């Protein structure tokens, strides 16, 4: 099994490497919103001293860490697989004796991340020079704890993203569904604003949705803002959602493939 993954890594890395110019463009596209939000909130914090206890530096560090966590935990399965379901080329992959999503798509996702990081790091350093963050609250311990949190985050967003992609077995409008899913994500994951600035009710809902486990939890963990109880609660939620996401994914995939062969595509 490990050999399969290694081989797939080589293939997918080479495949992604071809598109490195596109990667730079993708990165530019994806950078703009967080930077704009950073500027909006630091402007407000500077004009009135702080927002709900958050200073300008809190916002700067939050969004700079978000750039890294977002890249670590985001999932691009819909772009890798939905068209294969739609045009029927998935058939070829179904013939292979390994699960197409849990091997090829997963490795492709990770290869994409690895490559983006090569481009992201210099850009991130430039942004750090421009915004002058003070990372005093970050400790080695908090970074170490964030590693499993980010891995959980990626696993959950990968499984949920794959589940959404599998809806392509039933409907051609899978891209619209995923757009809706991601729009909710921007709000509930803390990509738009640190969740503590949301209305109380939204915060309570967000706490138990899987979205915040993929961005807000790892970020706050790195920045050392969480109490031990909150950390334990969130890791418990991680395990819970990972299990749920895996079960839903397995079921949707099984039913989907049944349907796929029934159509005969």
């Amino acid at each position, binding site marked *: 099994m490990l050999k399969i993954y290694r081989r797939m890594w080589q293939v997918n890395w080479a495949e992604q490497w071809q598109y490195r*110019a596109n990667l730079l463009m993708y990165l*530019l596209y994806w950078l703009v919103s967080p930077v704009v939000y950073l*500027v909006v909130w630091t402007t407000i914090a500077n*004009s009135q001293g702080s927002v709900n206890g958050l200073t300008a530096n809190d916002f700067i560090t939050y969004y700079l860490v978000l750039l890294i966590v977002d890249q670590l935990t985001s999932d691009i399965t819909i772009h890798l697989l939905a068209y294969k379901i739609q045009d029927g080329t998935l058939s070829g992959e179904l013939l292979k004796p390994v699960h197409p999503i849990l091997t090829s798509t997963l490795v492709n996702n990770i290869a994409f991340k690895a490559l983006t990081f090569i481009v992201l790091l210099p850009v991130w350093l430039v942004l750090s020079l421009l915004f002058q963050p003070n990372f005093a609250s970050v400790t080695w311990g908090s970074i170490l704890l964030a590693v499993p949190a980010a891995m959980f985050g990626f696993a959950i967003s990968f499984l949920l993203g794959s589940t959404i992609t599998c809806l392509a077995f039933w409907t051609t409008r899978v891209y619209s569904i995923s757009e809706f899913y991601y729009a909710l994500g921007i709000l509930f994951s803390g990509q738009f*604003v640190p969740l503590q600035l949301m209305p109380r009710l939204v915060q309570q809902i967000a706490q138990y949705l899987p979205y915040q486990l993929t961005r807000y939890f790892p970020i706050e963990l790195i920045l050392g803002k969480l109490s031990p109880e909150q950390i334990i609660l969130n890791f418990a939620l991680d395990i819970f959602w990972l299990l749920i996401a895996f079960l839903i994914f397995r079921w949707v995939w099984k039913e989907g493939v049944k349907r796929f062969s029934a159509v005969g595509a």
Partner: protein
Amino acid sequence: MHSLKLISTFLKVNLQVALAYRMDTLVNIILNLMWLGWELLSLSIIFSNTKTLGGWGPGELIALLGVFRLVNTLMAALIWPATEKFNTSVRDGSLDYTLLQPANSLFLISFSRIVVWRVWDLALGIILLVIGLSISGGSASLVGLGTFIVLVITGMLVIYSLWIVLVAATFWFVKFDNNVTILHALLDTGRYPSTIYPPWLRLIVTFLVPVAVATTVPMQALRGDLTAWQVLMFFSIGVVAFLVAYQVWRLGVRKYSGASS
């Protein structure tokens, strides 16, 4: 007269396309409404934590959102579909047929793929603008309103000119099919007043990829932040940009040699 007839034909054809995919059109409109809800919610979160954003009140930001949506409509209804068509036709050589037609090639490229349902977005932008202005309660003078409209059109002309130069670059560098990504990426900066951005970002969105010229600048005119000279300057920049861009396009077409030759 001739071009008006052409535009109405294009509209008719594209309306038929939209009607053939009624369900998709409906889904698109629903998604569009969802993003509107998202945008308004984000503004309400911002203003539940502060009274002004760099001197701009909630009404003014809603109006700015309206202007942003107008610009976004221009992009989504005309520019992005035209780009797609253009890039494909340079790659496979079908641009030859466009160039052979007895009408201006730039005109044909720009208008033959209008996404008709975006009219809805146009209306939404204007509604947001009116609501925003009435909330901010500023009594806009007739002159202010006039300059505002002129500057919105100027701003769109500037962005359109940049687009012409970017796609014309494809004539020289055929593999340059990422030509409009930079425009696409920076468009999102138009949702907020560029005056709050740090200098380097303000320079980029004012001069390099002038999104702010079409969104923040007209709103500033409405707020009375601009002098007559500045208004005149932005207006002439728009006209000059278009004239330069058109020359670049003509040079590019002359350089183009088809995909097979």
